[in-house]
């Protein structure tokens, strides 16, 4: 999976609104979560300070609950600095060639997110859930209570999951900002 391949997949991906338009009914949970979350002033300041362009590919499914609960968080962050964080959403089944190469635990899991440098050189991959999401899911699946499917996500869980994703976005941004290769290229 090299830069050329990743660029071709990025170019074939959809922006957020175009992706949600592929199934307006299934997009409803995505919109609810989007409305439920916002960045804190400190998070917004941090993202606005980013200098390096970082394309992001999200392998996803519009039907997927984990995607509905995590992709809107990524989108909120991207909107805070749209010239630096450019996200494209790729349906897992439409782009099966990509999904096959990023299987997790033997499964075609979504969302799986690929972070790249401005020239699409791969930097990092993260999926399918962050630690906060896993702790919450494990408590539901392995613990004594089991909420109904589609039950609202607690606000503190969403906020902490957003912070998990922001930590990885910030880590990738700093990796790129401090990269000798890119500092030489940009003279900074």
């Amino acid at each position, binding site marked *: *999976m090299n830069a050329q391949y990743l660029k071709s997949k990025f170019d074939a991906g959809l922006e957020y609104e175009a992706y949600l338009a592929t199934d307006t009914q299934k997009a409803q949970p995505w919109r609810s979560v989007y409305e439920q979350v916002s960045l804190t002033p400190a998070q917004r*300041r941090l993202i606005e300070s980013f200098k390096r362009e970082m394309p992001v590919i999200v392998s996803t499914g519009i039907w997927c609950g984990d995607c509905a609960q995590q992709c809107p968080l990524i989108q909120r962050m991207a909107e805070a600095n749209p010239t630096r964080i450019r996200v494209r959403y790729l349906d897992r089944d439409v782009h099966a060639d990509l999904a096959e190469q990023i299987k997790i635990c*033997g499964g075609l899991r979504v969302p799986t997110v690929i972070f790249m*440098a401005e020239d699409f*050189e791969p930097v990092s*991959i993260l999926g399918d859930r962050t630690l906060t999401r896993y*702790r919450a899911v494990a408590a539901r699946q392995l613990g004594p209570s089991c909420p109904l499917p589609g039950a609202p996500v607690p606000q503190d869980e969403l906020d902490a999951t957003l912070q998990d994703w922001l930590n990885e976005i910030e880590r990738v941004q*700093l990796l790129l900002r401090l990269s000798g290769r890119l500092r030489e290229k940009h003279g900074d």
Partner: protein
Amino acid sequence: MLMNASFLKRFFDQGVPYEVFVASGEREGHRPQWDERYSRLELDAPQRALVASFTREMNILCLTGTWCGDCALQGAAMQRIAEANPAKINLRFIPRSEDHAELIVKNQINAGYRVPVTWFMAEDFEPISRLGDRTLSRYRSMARKALPEVETAALPPPPADPIREVLRETLDEFERVHLLLRTSTRLRQKHGD
């Protein structure tokens, strides 16, 4: 980036345990930095209890170099974690050498041959995650030193203990991977739990 199970197993089988790897750097004088980090990274009681509670086996391969300071820090942290549950955590180290060129070339980060790069795998070597090269706290620390203040003003204050902060970050990924494995339908069916 994540590779496949047979590829990862092939390189895992070529990896060595921590002590053998650290000893391989003795002649060049690389050992003290690993020993120093290790001495400062003992797990506290809640961390030990968390790792001891892991019930799924996980295989971990760290591509690294005895000369590399970040590798010594992350490597020692991973070893401390692995020692808290040796029945479930199988940790191996593999040097960034020509012998492992296939692994190295296929796992460039930002077009560079960076270390450390660590793969977390299920019991059957199916890939779960790839971590590398530095953790967020290490990158923040570097940014504070290397970038103008105007660019780092939005960063949070440094942690009280930067060494143990890397242990915390590394342990977070161990826990995440373990929960992914523990809640995996495929593995729950296999183990009937």
